[in-house]
């Protein structure tokens, strides 16, 4: 029982991180109808920028404080992500208005390649460390309830808390601010939003900026967990079934989908893996999402699309 709960909690924590990456997909899809395949590249790019700036800033400024270096690196990396968002809108999306979803998807594939190349050219392609002072040692819980207690990774816990805080912040932003309201209007209907004077181009820049910041946070957390390296882009591939499961347009869907996928992955690996040779977590999430799609094509919380000829 203790072991099962441990696996479950581990899955929930990983799931929270998946939701964080998935959130980036959902935000952009909601506001602009673009399925942003480049989210993984953005996570890598942001994490690379953050790791390298944290390394360089003490040398540039002469201030040795790691806190200052990390904060300044975060701000700088955020600024870089804003610039990336602005450039993507200016150079790519503006020219592809009113194209089909497939075309936009392929354009983001192109952006993926470009960002990966640029990131590694500027920031190098070795493995880098992000050290934001997360506690590394595991923690025991429920020692009195179960024999042996449950081992919880403190790092995962902090990461999950940061992710939850970010999600809460984003929900507030979308629900309470006028920009958030405008974004929701754009998501509902581009033309109608434009006709009441919402500047479409600026909204897209904003939403890509937000996605950039989400990518930065995700990159920071994943990077401090796994180290910043090229394989970080595969995290995004792992987050894709989350979006599918939760529905492309739903923020709560991304979170709940992430939790389901995280738990499913861990449980399947532990309890099913030994029978089929292990390593099934990569495709298990996809097959789970696929099976779900056959029953409910729009995902858990997605909007049902009605087609008219």
């Amino acid at each position, binding site marked *: 029982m203790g072991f099962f709960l441990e696996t479950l909690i581990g899955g929930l924590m990983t799931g929270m991180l998946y939701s964080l990456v998935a959130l980036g997909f959902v935000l952009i899809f909601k506001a602009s109808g673009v*399925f942003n395949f480049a989210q993984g590249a953005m996570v890598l790019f942001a994490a690379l920028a953050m790791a390298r700036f944290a390394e360089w800033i003490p040398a540039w400024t002469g201030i040795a404080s790691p806190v200052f270096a990390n904060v300044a690196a975060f701000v700088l990396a955020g600024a870089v992500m804003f610039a990336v968002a602005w450039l993507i809108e200016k*150079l*790519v999306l503006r*020219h*592809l208005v009113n*194209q089909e*979803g*497939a*075309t936009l*998807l*392929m*354009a983001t*594939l*192109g*952006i*993926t*390649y*470009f*960002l*990966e*190349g*640029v990131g*590694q*050219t500027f920031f190098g*392609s070795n493995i880098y460390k992000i050290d934001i002072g997360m506690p590394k040692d595991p923690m025991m819980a429920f020692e009195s309830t179960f024999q042996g207690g449950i081992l919880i990774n403190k790092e995962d816990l902090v990461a999950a808390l940061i992710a939850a805080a970010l999600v809460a912040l984003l929900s507030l932003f979308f629900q309470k601010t006028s920009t958030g309201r405008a974004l929701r209007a754009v998501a509902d209907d581009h033309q109608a939003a434009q006709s009441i004077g919402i500047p479409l181009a600026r909204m897209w820049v904003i939403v890509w900026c937000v996605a950039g910041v989400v990518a930065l946070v995700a990159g920071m957390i994943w990077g401090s967990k796994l180290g910043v390296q090229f394989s970080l882009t595969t995290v995004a*591939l792992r987050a*894709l*079934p989350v*979006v*599918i499961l939760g529905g*492309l347009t739903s923020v709560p869907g991304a979170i709940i989908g992430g939790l389901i996928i995280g738990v499913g992955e861990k449980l399947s690996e532990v309890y099913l893996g030994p029978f*089929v*040779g*292990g*390593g*099934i977590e*990569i*495709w298990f999430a*996809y*097959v789970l*999402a*696929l099976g779900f*799609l*056959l029953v409910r*094509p729009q*995902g858990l919380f997605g909007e049902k699309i009605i*087609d*008219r*000829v």
Partner: protein
Amino acid sequence: MLYRENGQFKTSYRADQQIFPIVQDRWAMLAILLIGFVLVPAFASDYMFRAILVPFLIMAMAAVGVNILVGYCGQISLGSGAFMAVGAYGAFNFFARIPGLPLIPALILGGLCATVFGILFGLPSLRVRGLYLAVATLAAQFFADWMFLRIKWFTMDTPSGSVSVSNLQVLGWPIESATSKYLFCLALLVLVALAAKNLVRSAIGREWMAIRDMDVAAAVIGIRPMYAKLSAFAVSSFIIGVAGALWAFVYLGAWEPAAFSVEMSFRLLFMVIIGGLGSIMGSFFGAAFIVVLPIFLNQFLPWAAGLVGFVISTAGVSHAEQMIFGALIVWFLIVEPHGLAKLWSTGKQKLRLWPFPH
């Protein structure tokens, strides 16, 4: 002046519906075939065959397959690499397990394995479409990656799933030298391209295109979406599977599952985008472009960097290659969404009127 169709009258439906209705096109095609089968083997160097021509021919075949699915039927697939892998390992299993099985039946059986796999993973297309389907096809990719790495039966219990084939021959003719590999691939490609061209001109091809343009409307006018979509998946994955088997048998010789990773799927998709969605001709352009570009950049970038007194590392070249790839894809999507094939047909259109612009 030289290229125009006035004066060429069609007096029968047969003449009107042939693949190349203009006589100059027919001659040009014959000339290209002649060059491909006679002149190129006589003059190309060994390096040309191994590094450019053979990969180009095989990739062009795979691109034809992808184009049928993505370009003609509108089902975006990010799992083409998986279909290639299934074709390659399927053919390998038949080839290694049945003693004395000739090469061509092995390739066809490999293609059939890919067909079954393709239909299986094409089933979600009946329920979901567009972006959801694109992600769903990734499931095929990851499943195949895992299957050939972990299930030892498929790879005859070799460690890390790497296998090799040797002693290839067709009807007693050994496929060992670069020239024979080239001719074999070329012959197969010509057959596949001809079959694909005729398929997309036929009733089933028009059904695919109707599904692509608007599947609800197509269903309303009596096209069965299930039949059309699954047949597109079947035909396309058969061609991709044969191409995958060729890639493994003829080009690589010895390979492991990583040869057909998700990277391969993306590459195939780029070929189709850059070449032209919904055009058999475009598949050739796209394949040529994607095969030649890295080789060209590998030579050109260090040279260009050397001109400005700068040494560029191997990693730098590969990053620059990635950037140029990405930028080109975006550029093509913005400037010419129909790809190189559209430029080709625009050129031909202009040539018909030449030297008068109107």
